[in-house]
């Protein structure tokens, strides 16, 4: 079908400090309903969005991190984390709350090139 496009959501911002991560996730969930080819990438501070064990009671803000686990139910299974960004933050795959594909910067650059629509917030 010609109406199916490759949508990529680029997440480069940490959660809570600003609302971008949360509102980005809201768009992702809506995009799934449009039967598009959706992928999410996490680089730079965006990797922090996926950190396990987020406890937001003390800042009186909704913890939206469980929603990343729900993505699978919306058939969104292409989650990519840039290796260099993850390592630069002292994190490893075990620290992340969902299964992701870890890829190097060059491979991620190629993946970006292949997209029709790249959204970043």
């Amino acid at each position, binding site marked *: 079908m010609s109406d199916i*496009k490759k949508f990529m959501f680029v997440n480069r911002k940490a959660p809570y400090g600003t609302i971008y991560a949360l509102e980005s996730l809201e768009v992702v969930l809506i995009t799934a309903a449009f039967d598009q080819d959706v992928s999410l990438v996490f680089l730079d501070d965006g990797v922090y969005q996926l950190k396990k064990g987020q406890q937001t009671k003390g800042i009186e803000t909704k913890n939206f991190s469980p929603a990343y686990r729900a993505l699978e139910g919306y058939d969104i299974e292409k989650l990519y984390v840039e290796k260099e960004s993850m390592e630069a933050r002292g994190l490893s795959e075990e620290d992340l709350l969902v299964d992701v594909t870890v890829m190097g910067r060059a491979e991620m650059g190629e993946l970006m090139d292949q997209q029709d629509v790249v*959204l970043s917030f």
Partner: protein
Amino acid sequence: MKFGIVVNEGPYQHQASDSAYLFCKAAIEKGHEVWRVFFYHDGVNNASKLTEPPQDDRHIVNRWGKLNEEHGVDLVVCVAAALRRGIKDENLAKGFRISGLGQMVEAGVKTDRLIVFGD
């Protein structure tokens, strides 16, 4: 070519809204179509009719409205982001309409290029 535009920041605070507007103007001058501008995050504040800039400053809100009036650009404000920030039909400026996030996705699907302006 058919363009979709996403504006993620409010007016005056950040240059994103100005850049997006000047891009739209240039695209239209070149004979392209700006099919839709979608306002998200603090970008929804671009649609407040209560905006009153000093007289010697540009009127960002009315400038968008004019794009709608003169070139039929569809100005869509995200309902969820708008309600969070106190933008409702009663203070919505002329030329804008409030609708769902699906309208942004639709802009991605139906236009040739979707350009994002933000912080």
